[in-house]
């Protein structure tokens, strides 16, 4: 795309700026097309066309313009899009680089930016004082969620997030370095040159598109005799060529965490018109730095005076950036209002570029002599000891009212832009995030780094070092090497103020904005103090000062000074709110990074997963596992499928994938002794080739996990745990083995994923399995219930368990995971031919409940003892020690009336209780009722022909035979308390 120079905007200054006129880009702003130069920000491109009005404020919907030229921008928030899904709201126009084809929109206005209905709020502003929402929308309570909040959210707000899924991808990189340097201005670059010379690995980071920092605007500073900006680019080129240095631009150090850990967000493609598909949009860097050099500079503050927020009013340094870097004049007749010498240099640059300076209004009586002399020699009118007390102009400033301090004769001066400076606030954000402590510098009226909490050092502007020569020395020292470098600047800057200026003091009611984005005025801070907020943390929350997306980069110091004035306390005593990460907003995409979609939470699949899916299995999530839930046949719903599976298992047999069971191999000469200590049961009495159901309690005596343990040899146990409990059980075992029983010779290995487990359960289980098994006689006599053997199944080495979680004759075949599918296929082919079924976890749950087998975590909740669960028999009376032995004797654990697991049968067999439902003795008692316990498991049992339930009930076993009640929302269900075995009470089937 090309264009003649005049459509680049009427406010372009010929010969100014660093962009190439031939390289242009076209974009739209609120539907209108503009031409910009490559390298422009949206802000500089709009200003080039004389557009200052870019948004409406958060609360009062006041017209707002571009205040700054950098990351601190509170006002100019825009919506940037490539297409419907690639759209980002709340982007700072001063940071976003223009790219060809960008569609930019203003935000928080309706129907249009120039005529916004919400601006009505501005007229109502007397009612919208600080704390307005807290006080007004308190009752009725219900109205908050239905009426007030939706209304407020619509009226007051920022941009609108896109609804489409983000099609971009984001990258993540870990890095380690000797020195990380945040900020590539004079200080950062110097420190980098110095550190790089020592051979240290260096990462130099800057948030802007090019290095240079303040040299973007400061055209009078020379380094090594060269123009500062050019020196910076040459220095960066030199650094980039060094193998031990990484230079990252368009990258923000957004967080400084513990132990030299920093978070960086690199914007890779947001400035490109046609980004390559392989490029990530942004890259998250997680850097561990041995040492950190903070060279984050300082941020210019605005002046706090009446109506200081009109479009056309901006920071002096911003006007200088737009002129010197982008070649754009912010107006034709510019006023200056300042308390600091730096604004004079902006006036000089503008004047030399042919812009008329209406006047420099300086609230100080004595500005720096050098700048004053220069102003005079350039013929600029300087009004010292004067203040701007008001401004006019609806959508852009048209004039300012100037008054001699303490005087009353006001005069109106016409301007089309007003540049302001109240001085510079050191950017101590990252230092503060690193938990460093600040001190208040009385002379400079600023907070500076004092006590360091980490191996880091601040240099330059963020350290309050104003003198260029000092700054260079400081940066060289911080880098740890040596470089010869000389710098010179034309003027030493003096001055600065914090707080409200003339005409916006405590006795006034004017709107003098402190926080532009949240519409907080000086008056609001005073109101907060009057209403009793005396801590700066309270004032901040009451007024929302500094709580917008710019985090108060411009407003915090002003707010603090005004609060201190009203409280009549020195600033350090009022305190400073804590700086928190991120320094500037970071997109969710960058933070979430690869962790979305399939990678959000990895799925664990058993070796037979694909075979089960092919059989039509529905899966359920159990922890990270995908488990086959049920296997519906054509026309079956879940209920019908589960009923069929339940019936078939008890009538013929069923095949079940039990691979997710946690498995731990416990090996060593002291293995039995170790298990004796970990489980409540005794294990030394278990013979090799046998299994036992074990219960594990914590030291407090409550059930922690359960499972079958098989003894394969004197020194080898195959432990199974619950599916969800495997990692914590291993951790628990390791803890005791390593720290309490280190004398035991035992080795623990997680084998959960090494074994595929195929359960075959039902009267025909043996007939199904028999032909595949070699190496062990699996007749009932030779291989009774609770046996284990090493053998082969379909020729594959296997561990065969005769165990049952259904109450039927059952086997669990463990084969190496890779063989799982082949063995499963062979077994299922035979089982299917014999009329057996595949069954899933739902049927497993029903069948085990029919037998009263508990599920730890469903029927127990961390407050249930083995005796409560009816498993008192599993607690050894002979052992002198095991984990939980003492806890089980605690008075509360042995008292009468504890909640115990019992069965419940509804009076009406077709009523299935709700799990979690509460149980009472008398449904007619007044509320709140005395609750006896709750339902832990409830199912329709096809085999029993009725519903069944398990419940924790106070004094449960003593209540067997009683009728209790389960009050539901619409009715009360009467239930009979029973024992927990609903099917095959004699238990003969398991030994079939």
């Amino acid at each position, binding site marked *: 795309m090309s264009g003649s120079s005049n459509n680049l905007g009427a406010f372009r200054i010929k010969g100014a700026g660093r962009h190439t006129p031939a390289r242009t880009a076209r974009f739209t702003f609120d539907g209108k097309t503009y031409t910009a130069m490559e390298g422009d920000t949206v802000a500089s491109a709009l200003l080039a066309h004389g557009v200052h009005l870019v948004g409406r404020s958060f609360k009062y919907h006041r017209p707002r313009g571009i205040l700054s030229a950098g990351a601190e921008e509170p006002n100019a928030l825009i919506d940037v899009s490539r297409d419907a899904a690639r759209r980002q709201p709340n982007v700072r126009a001063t940071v976003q680089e223009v790219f060809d084809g960008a569609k930019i929109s203003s935000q928080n206005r309706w129907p249009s930016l120039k005529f916004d209905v919400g601006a009505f709020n501005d007229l109502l502003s007397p009612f919208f004082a600080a704390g307005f929402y807290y006080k007004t929308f308190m009752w009725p309570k219900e109205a908050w969620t239905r009426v007030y909040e939706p209304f407020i959210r619509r009226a007051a707000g920022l941009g609108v997030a896109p609804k489409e899924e983000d099609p971009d991808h984001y990258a993540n990189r870990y890095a380690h370095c000797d020195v990380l340097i945040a900020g590539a201005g004079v200080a950062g670059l110097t420190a980098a040159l110095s550190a790089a010379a020592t051979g240290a690995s260096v990462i130099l980071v800057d948030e802007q598109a090019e290095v240079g920092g303040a040299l973007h605007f400061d055209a009078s500073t020379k380094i090594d005799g060269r123009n500062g900006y050019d020196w910076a680019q040459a220095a960066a080129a030199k650094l980039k060529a060094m193998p031990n240095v990484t230079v990252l631009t368009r990258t923000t150090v957004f967080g400084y*965490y*513990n*132990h*030299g*850990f920093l978070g960086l967000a690199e914007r890779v493609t947001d400035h490109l018109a046609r980004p390559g598909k392989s490029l990530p949009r942004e890259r998250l860097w*997680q850097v*561990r730095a041995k040492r950190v050099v903070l060279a984050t500079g300082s941020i210019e503050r605005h002046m706090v005076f009446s109506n200081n927020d009109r479009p056309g009013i901006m920071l002096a340094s911003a006007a200088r950036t737009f002129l010197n870097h982008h070649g754009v004049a912010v107006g034709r007749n510019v006023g200056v209002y300042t308390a600091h010498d730096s604004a004079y240099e902006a006036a000089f640059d503008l004047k030399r570029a042919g812009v008329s300076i209406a006047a420099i209004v300086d609230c100080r009586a004595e500005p720096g002599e050098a700048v004053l002399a220069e102003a005079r020699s350039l013929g600029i009118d300087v009004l010292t000891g004067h203040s701007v007390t008001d401004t006019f102009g609806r959508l852009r400033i048209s004039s300012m009212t100037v008054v001699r301090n303490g005087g009353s004769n006001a005069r109106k001066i016409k301007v089309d832009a007003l540049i302001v400076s109240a001085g510079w606030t050191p950017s101590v954000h990252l230092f503060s995030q690193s*938990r460093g*402590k600040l001190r208040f510098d009385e002379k400079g009226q600023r907070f500076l780094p004092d*006590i360091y*909490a980490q191996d880091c050092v601040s240099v330059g502007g963020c350290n309050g070092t104003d003198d260029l020569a000092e700054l260079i020395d400081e940066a060289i020292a911080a880098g740890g090497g040596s470089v010869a470098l000389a710098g010179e600047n034309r003027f030493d800057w003096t001055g600065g103020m914090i707080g409200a200026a003339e005409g916006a003091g405590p006795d006034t009611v004017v709107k003098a904005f402190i926080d532009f984005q949240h519409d907080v005025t000086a008056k609001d801070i005073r109101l907060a103090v009057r209403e009793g907020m*005396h*801590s*700066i*943390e*309270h004032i901040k929350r009451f007024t929302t000062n500094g709580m917008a997306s710019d985090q108060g980069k411009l407003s915090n110091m002003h707010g603090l000074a005004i609060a201190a004035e009203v409280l009549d306390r020195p600033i350090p*005593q*009022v*305190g400073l709110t*804590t700086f928190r990460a991120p320094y500037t907003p970071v997109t969710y995409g960058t933070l979430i990074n690869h962790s979305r979609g399939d990678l959000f939470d990895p799925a664990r699949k058993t070796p037979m997963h694909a075979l089960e899916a092919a059989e039509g299995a529905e899966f359920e999530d159990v922890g990270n596992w995908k488990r086959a839930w049920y296997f519906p046949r054509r026309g079956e719903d879940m209920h019908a499928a589960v009923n069929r599976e339940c019936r078939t298992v008890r009538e013929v047999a069923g095949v079940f994938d039990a691979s997710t069971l946690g498995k731990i191999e416990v090996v060593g000469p002291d293995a039995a002794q170790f298990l004796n200590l970990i489980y409540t049961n005794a294990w030394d009495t278990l013979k090799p080739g046998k299994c036992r159901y074990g219960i594990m309690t914590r*030291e*407090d005596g409550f059930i922690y996990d359960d499972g079958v343990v098989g003894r394969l040899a004197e020194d080898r146990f195959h432990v199974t745990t619950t599916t969800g409990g495997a990692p914590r059980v291993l*951790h628990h075992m*390791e*803890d005791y083995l*390593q*720290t*309490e029983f*280190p004398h035991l010779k035992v080795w623990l290995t997680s084998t959960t994923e090494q074994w595929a487990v195929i359960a075959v359960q039902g009267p025909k289980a043996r007939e199904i399995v028999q032909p595949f098994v070699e190496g062990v006689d699996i007749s009932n006599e030779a291989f009774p219930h609770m046996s284990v053997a090493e053998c082969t199944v379909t020729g594959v080495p296997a561990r065969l368990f005769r165990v049952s979680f259904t109450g039927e004759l059952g086997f669990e075949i463990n084969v190496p995971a890779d063989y799982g599918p082949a063995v499963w296929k062979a077994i299922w082919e035979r089982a299917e031919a014999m009329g057996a079924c595949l069954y899933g976890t739902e049927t497993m749950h029903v069948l085990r409940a029919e037998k009263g087998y508990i599920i730890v975590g469903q029927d127990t909740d961390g407050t249930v003892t083995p005796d409560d669960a009816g498993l008192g028999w599993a607690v050894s009376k002979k052992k*002198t*020690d095991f984990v939980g*032995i*003492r*806890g089980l*004797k*605690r*008075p509360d654990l042995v008292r009468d009336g504890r909640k115990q697991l019992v069965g419940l049968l509804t009076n009406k067999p077709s009523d299935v209780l709700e799990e979690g439902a509460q149980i009472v003795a008398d449904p007619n008692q007044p509320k709140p009722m005395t609750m006896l316990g709750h339902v832990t498991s409830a199912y329709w049992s096809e085999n029993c022909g009725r519903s069944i339930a398990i419940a924790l009930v106070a004094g449960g076993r003593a209540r067997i035979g009683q009728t209790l009640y389960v009050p539901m929302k619409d009715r009360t269900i009467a239930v009979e308390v029973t024992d927990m075995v609903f099917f095959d009470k004699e238990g003969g089937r398991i030994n079939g």
Partner: protein
Amino acid sequence: MLLIHCPYCEEARSELEFRWAGEAHIARPENIAAITDEEFAEYFFLRNNEKGLTYERWRHIHGCGRFFNAARDTVSDRFVMTYKAGLPKQPVPPAEKVSAIAEEKTVETWEATEGDAR
């Protein structure tokens, strides 16, 4: 993210690899079955939760798998030292104690913020 020195791997590794495991140097009583309710409460339930220098256990769970001890300042999150499980409580150099106390004020407690403002 913390950087933790594993005394078994003899290397500082990222917190991601570790899991905190509670206060250190609480030995399970050898005669645990015979202790009183008070002694059991002291052993199992009661923890000091001290502000400043604390002794705690960590496990290099995604590394060597070993449990070890650490002396950490809970105010600054600085690890004063880490050492192997089974070693007695290691004394901390006096200078470290001073710094732990000096940094106490940076914590955002009610006493540190509102308290001062009264």
